[in-house]
């Protein structure tokens, strides 16, 4: 400090200058994301434009990647042929049944593991052992167990959704504030009432984020599920496009899958807003 003062003295006109004043630097802020509308859309649009221009000028060869306009043309062909509804309808049915049944079962088993020492000791190692098995590897077995009809397709999705829901549910139950449960007991609530009115609502945030994951897994597994004798379905469409090297149809099919993902994610966000409004 002394040095600095000297330095100022030498250069300053006034040796007994007023105390050095300066505004305090702002160093807070940041590290918090705020909603920025249209940025995502703009990034998307810019990428599409670069892609289209690249394809038209030949920088991106047709073999590598078809132009977005070609993929769109393939999509319109699908719309005009009337097959879009058939594909989407078949897939949605499988997704809905597989996801609902898988989530419901997962919720039941997850709650059991979360609340009962025996269920936890007996089932949670089993869940950890079976969860990481790629369901695609089991397809030949699924064919034998569930047939080549809707059964094996729904089962593939069901299995995919079941395990993440189990894990999310019992994780959520583990982190429920125990004093709330104590409170329920102290007022003489029945065990079932405590589960239904305290434990499950408190675990709901974890359960919903588990569902977000399992819904994505369901869409990922759609392609695998529709490997088994599917005539219609977006997964079957994508597979056929891949087998035929029709990359424009492939991109169109993949785009439909990702639209499906966006819609599901939006629905879950809506559900979160509706059920978890109390958090804000």
């Amino acid at each position, binding site marked *: 400090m002394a040095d600095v003062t000297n330095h100022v003295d030498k250069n300053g006109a006034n040796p007994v200058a007023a105390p050095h004043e300066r505004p305090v630097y702002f160093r807070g802020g940041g590290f918090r994301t705020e909603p920025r509308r249209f940025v995502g859309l703009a990034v998307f649009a810019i990428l599409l434009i670069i892609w289209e221009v690249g394809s038209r000028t030949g920088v991106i060869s047709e073999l590598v990647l078809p132009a977005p306009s070609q993929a769109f043309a393939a999509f319109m062909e699908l719309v005009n042929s009337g097959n879009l509804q058939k594909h989407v309808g078949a897939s949605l049915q499988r997704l809905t049944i597989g996801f609902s049944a898988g989530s419901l079962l997962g919720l039941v088993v997850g709650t059991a593991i979360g609340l009962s020492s025996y269920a936890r000791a007996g089932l949670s190692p089993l869940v950890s052992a079976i969860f990481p098995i790629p369901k695609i590897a089991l397809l030949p077995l699924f064919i034998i167990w569930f047939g080549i009809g809707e059964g094996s397709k729904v089962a593939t999705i069901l299995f995919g959704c079941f395990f993440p829901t189990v894990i999310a549910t019992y994780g959520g139950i583990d982190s429920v*504030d125990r004093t709330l449960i104590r409170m329920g*007991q*102290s007022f*003489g*609530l029945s065990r079932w009432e405590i589960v239904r009115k305290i434990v499950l*609502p408190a675990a709901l945030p974890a359960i919903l984020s588990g569902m977000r994951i399992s819904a994505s897994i369901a869409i990922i597994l759609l392609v695998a599920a529709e490997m088994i004798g599917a005539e219609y379905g977006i997964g079957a469409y994508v597979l056929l496009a891949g087998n035929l090297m029709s990359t424009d149809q492939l991109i169109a099919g993949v785009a439909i899958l990702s639209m499906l993902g966006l819609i599901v994610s939006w629905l879950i966000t809506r559900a979160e807003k509706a059920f978890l409004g*109390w958090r804000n």
Partner: protein
Amino acid sequence: MDLRVDGLSHWYSDLEVLRDINLTIPQGQIVCVIGPSGCGKSTLLRLLGGLEQPTQGQVTQVGEPPVGSLNPLTYVFQDFALLPWRSVEDNVSLVLERHNLSKAEKEDRISDVLTRTRLSDFRKAVPKQLSGGMKQRVAIARALSVNPAVLLMDEPLSALDSQTRELLMDDLIDLWTREQFTSCYITHNLAEAVRLGHKVVVLSRRPGVVREVVDIDIPLANRRMSDPRIAEIQQDLWDMMREEAQTADLELAP
């Protein structure tokens, strides 16, 4: 209805927490329990309300709970224990739902307790929107709604700032003056004990034994902190506590 404790001892495996506690909580009185940290106050309260089973001795209800009491032994928790996803009225309604009350009776009970705790304007609010003091009033309203015989309160004010605490203490005194509820009130705040307690039970450091029971026969409504009698009792309690607290403070936590 009185609550009587006979020869109560409690162990957590090898840890002796409470030793031979004998105590009565007479109807219409507030019994404050003070003692150094970790001496077993919360444990005692859990034993009183049947949330835990004593290793030895027993807790007895003497006499009948008031007519219409849905939950004779009712807790008020330190951290309120409100369900954050339920509104004020729904938090109260939670503990009434299983009793097959008619819709009208349920509604009566809810609006009655909310009026008594001055919360009628906040029926639809969720806990997040309430201040700490209001949250504890909701918890008290919830406890009152089941018409308890004994209110078991574990440091109900310690999560609040000191002004709020004063206000809520006044509320409790008003409430008692109006309806003479029975309560076991755990605290480590001596000022609370001398303001609210008809009896103050002093526990020793762990294992907790009853060191002293101090009766304060000044009516609750008339107690002022400036009153030298109050100050003297508080000083006596502190002298008793100081030694225990100092020794307890030097011991390692188990």
